[in-house]
């Protein structure tokens, strides 16, 4: 009888460790998902910052004949009191060609505002081929009262972009995150800051 009870306890203990492991796995799904998104372009998330070298090494723009239309979109989330939008609604680029465009944000409130812009790309498959060298979305942007800020985005399209894609839509959703204390990084960091 004694032996049996201890066997039971041993097995129960092993099973409990499976439970703990699976609980941990639920949290592991968060970074796993990010990696998965980056690899597959799931959900249209774009990757993190790439260096200029990397950009220019693949820049042989003259060899490319394809022209890709990149369309810029913007939207405000919930109560973000910002006049936010792209300066140019679209550009036509050749894969490999580094392009710089601007988004404009105007603080409409009577206080200093911290914003975070979140990128999203459609079609989803295009997300991993949109390479950003410089983006205002890499960090929080602070806007003084009434400030009008031109925010740069430097990117190029990877030449591996599948043939059938001729147009890419890039949307930024701007969030007012002023309530989160200044300098207090969100626990689960902005997607594009912790890669590359």
């Amino acid at each position, binding site marked *: *009888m004694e032996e*049996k009870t201890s*066997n*039971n306890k041993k*097995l*129960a203990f092993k*099973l*409990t460790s*499976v*439970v*703990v*492991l*699976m*609980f941990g*796995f*639920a*949290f592991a*799904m*968060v970074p796993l*998902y990010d990696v998965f*998104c980056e690899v*597959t*372009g*799931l*959900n*249209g*998330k774009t990757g993190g910052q790439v260096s200029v070298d990397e950009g220019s090494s693949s820049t042989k723009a003259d060899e490319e004949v394809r022209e890709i239309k990149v369309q810029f979109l913007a939207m405000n*989330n919930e109560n973000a009191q910002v006049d936010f939008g792209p300066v140019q609604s679209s550009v036509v680029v050749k894969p490999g060609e580094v392009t710089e465009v601007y988004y404009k944000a105007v603080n409409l409130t009577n206080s200093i505002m911290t914003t*975070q812009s*979140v990128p999203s790309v459609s079609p*989803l*498959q295009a997300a991993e081929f949109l390479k950003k060298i410089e983006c205002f979305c890499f960090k929080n942007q602070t806007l003084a009262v009434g400030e009008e800020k031109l925010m740069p985005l430097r990117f190029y399209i990877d030449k591996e972009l599948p043939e059938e894609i001729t147009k890419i839509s890039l949307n930024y*959703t701007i*969030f007012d*995150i002023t309530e*989160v204390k200044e300098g207090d990084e*969100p*626990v*689960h*960091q*902005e*997607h*594009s*800051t912790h890669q590359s």
Partner: protein
Amino acid sequence: MGEHHGPAKGITRWLYSTNHKDIGTLYLWLSLIMFFMGGVYAMCIRLELLQPGIQYFDPSLYNQFITLHGLIMVFGAVMPAFVGLANWMIPMMIGAPDMALPRMNNWSFWILPFAFSMLSLTTLMPGGGPNFGWTFYAPLSTTFAPPSTTFFIFAVHMMGASSIMGAINIIVTILNLRAPGMTLMKMPLFVWTWLITAFLLIAAMPILAGAVTMMLFDIHFGTSFFSAAGGGDPVLFQHVFWFFGHPEVYIIILPAFGVVSQIFPTFSRKPLFGYVSMVYATAAIAILSFIVWAHHMFLVGMPFVGEAFFMYATMLIAIPTGVKVFNWMTTMFKGAITFETPMLFAIGFLVLFTCGGFTGLMLAIGPADFQYHDSYFVVAHFHYVLVPGAIFSAMGATYYWLPKWTGNMYNETLGKVHFWLSFVSINVLFFPQHFLGLAGMPRRIPDYALAFADFNFLSSIGGFVYGASQLIFVYVVIQCIRGGTGKVSEKPWDGAVGLEWTLSSPPPYHSFSTPPDPKLIPDLH
């Protein structure tokens, strides 16, 4: 151990019980009470949908009803019903004296009443109870949720802990306490399906716990797991939730498969057809359940490859499920069938669960799902799987084993009336919902366009009849406990096979104090 003593007297028998039968009984009563509570919510829903317009409940209250109906039916009615059956039957079926971890057994039950009391009391809080559907998608359940969500999260944690403890207990019991001679491949199918279900539970439940913990962090501690503003992603919530949610579907239905696999052979007086393939099919379904979750998310925007993968994986489930359906049919084939109430429920299960399976196959097809998704077609589908699937089988199991538990026979006529009323009304209730969904009615709405009025009316009538007929069940059970239509022998069903039928009816307080004679263990294949 204590084979010389019987149950304690009075309330302490139940509060401190470590006896598998007493705890099984507690689970079954809780399940029945929760079934009626979830049922009251369902009746309110059907009452509001009886006619177009808002007649009785404000939409915000209606949203609480659909949420609580789902949560209570899944976690309060169906799961405890099968855990109760497992507690009662597994030790008796494998020749064990009791469950392996009796104190934990007591714990895992007594958490539940508190969890469900807390959950249902949230409706009285300012802001109301959870109102985001039983799938509680973020950010509706985080940034936009009522304050009571914290209590909802706590209740889900408690239910999860209870299920996990129950599952550990069942695995240990089955693996360690089998009587000599009871090899794995001699175990009755109900035991097999529960063993696999228990493994699913310990793998899936912690994921749910993780999901609600992340929600808790997002709500109270400023993290952004599910909020795009902080770099999170609302779609991540759906991935985590359905990674739990799809195995959960099989946690609910596999024990039901086990139950009907006991009932069909008994009343066909013929051994179960294809025992080995049944075991393998069950295992196959369990494994597949972990790679199909994103078919609940065909609309969130997935790359073509992802969409196609989850479509194919989901379609694969039809194969082991088909094997099971054909095996049950062939078990009856060339038997000598009689139609007592448990058998009627098993046949009702087979016919209507198959219907739910058909719509399941339709829903698996990605492009078609673009139209079916989140429409009443889905509501019809999963209710066909859950009600005639899980609920019919749990009720069939109760009729099947009630004579064993009580030593008395239930009233057969009333049982049959209960079955036929349920069978007809359930179809009036859910079949028209297929049409509603195809015609374009979204789910989870309290009011609808006029084109949907007639079928909703019909569906509601079916709902009221179904709800009312369940009162017969309560009556039959209580009447049976109080003596029923007379005493029964140790084996009231002449075709029944298995160790549980070698014990007296009602069985002794400690099932097999001494291991049964190995010769009594039947070979099932």
